[in-house]
């Protein structure tokens, strides 16, 4: 009798899992978290180190939410945190060499797992922006930067704003799609100065 009941119970339990009703049985499946999957699904290679990658900063954590609330206090706090980390130049010499800047804007190399540790990083600005008019192979993820200085002028405010954008766009717009070139050390100070020149040297072809 008791055995019979147990049998029926087992069958029922089996059936309910078959039909997948959201019962307690769900707990019987091992239920991995994304973190477990990441550990088993990605591995260090070349310049990309898994441990470092896995250790998201608070901005990345926030922006990984399914719908980050960009008007929240947390968002504001993160933006000012990003702003604090920006290095402004004491000598005010923000404008480097636009020709070198163009090469940096063109190159998409560096920091991919098939790159070598000492590949020189590009800025890959053309992946997302129109910049010089002659370069037709530009993306559209970001706004056009053609005639950047021409349109906005060359004032100190424009220069500081642009430096901020390139150093750390998340200081002004949380969860911006643009990489934090200075903050994440993708480009050096001198390379960022060259890219600045591409946009803000009146002699740069961008402003002709």
């Amino acid at each position, binding site marked *: 009798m008791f055995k019979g009941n147990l049998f029926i119970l087992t069958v029922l339990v089996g059936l309910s899992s078959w039909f997948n009703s959201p019962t307690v049985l769900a707990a019987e499946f091992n239920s991995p978290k994304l973190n477990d*999957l*990441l550990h088993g699904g990605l591995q260090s290679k070349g310049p990309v180190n898994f441990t470092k990658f896995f250790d998201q900063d608070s901005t990345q954590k926030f922006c990984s939410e399914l719908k980050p609330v960009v008007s929240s206090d947390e968002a504001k706090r993160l933006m000012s945190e990003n702003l604090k980390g920006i290095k402004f130049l004491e000598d005010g010499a923000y404008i480097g060499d636009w020709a070198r800047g163009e090469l940096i804007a063109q190159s998409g190399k560096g920091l991919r797992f098939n790159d070598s540790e000492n590949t020189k990083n590009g800025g890959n600005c053309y992946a997302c922006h129109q910049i010089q008019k002659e370069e037709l192979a530009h*993306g559209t*993820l970001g706004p056009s930067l053609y005639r950047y200085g021409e349109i906005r002028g060359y004032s100190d405010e424009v220069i500081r704003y642009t430096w901020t954008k390139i150093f750390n766009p998340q200081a002004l717009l949380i969860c911006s799609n643009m*990489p934090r070139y200075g903050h994440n050390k993708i480009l050096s100070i001198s390379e960022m100065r060259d890219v600045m020149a591409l946009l803000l040297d009146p002699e740069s072809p961008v402003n002709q």
Partner: protein
Amino acid sequence: MLKWSVLILIFGAFSFSQVFADEDTTAGIQEYRDLLDDVNPAELWVFSGEELWYRKAGPKNASLETCDLGKGPGVTVGAYVELPRFFFDAQKVMDLEQRLIYCRTLIQGFSRADIISYPFTKRGQETSEIEMLVAYIASESRGLHMNIPLMRIEEKRVYELGKQFFHFRAGSHDFGCITCHSGDNQRIRLQELPNFRNKDEASKSYGSWPAYRVSAGEVRTMQHRLYDCLRQQRFPEPIYGSDLMTALIMFLAKSADGGLYEAPGIKR
């Protein structure tokens, strides 16, 4: 006979790919498609894949005819459009590529390490058997509609994990899949980016993989596509056949649910 005509086509494709690599235009692809007029070099992969499916191989000298892709042992028609799915024997959700690894190890006795060490054909080396098998299985779903009902708790859970990973932003560039694939009419350089939040675009995109890639002269699988995106995303190297890749593919497949499946297609 048919095979020879396909072979001749392939040679044509190779010489074409040389020219094409420099041009990189959507117009070029269209021209190429017209040129081929319905016949796709991927057919050769499909034929070889079918042969492989029925050929006895591995330490156990068995064919894959008893492999259950979800619709019963040996059933290939309609399998792809219902994958990934939960498998009772393995007690987990698997995509096609993970399932093929499972069958090849269990039924044919190959070692998992051997299979995952060569999933994607390298230039000038032998063609990966996985790519041939995937092309064949995919072709057996051509013309059907994606059918991912997420009936099982485990499938829902894997879908949610894939969705989380799609939104996961990390690494040197703060990129996630979402950076490049969540807006309409966007491009990286000249390459158009499908928006996976848009059902039509997700369907068109998912429904065209695996694909013959003109630039590589090879058929590439969904896992290869993701491998390349994760590389551009500055993420660590994805491990072939891992549960992470399955979860991501589950998310993409569900985004394309109901859409027409037309692969293997042709891509740049």
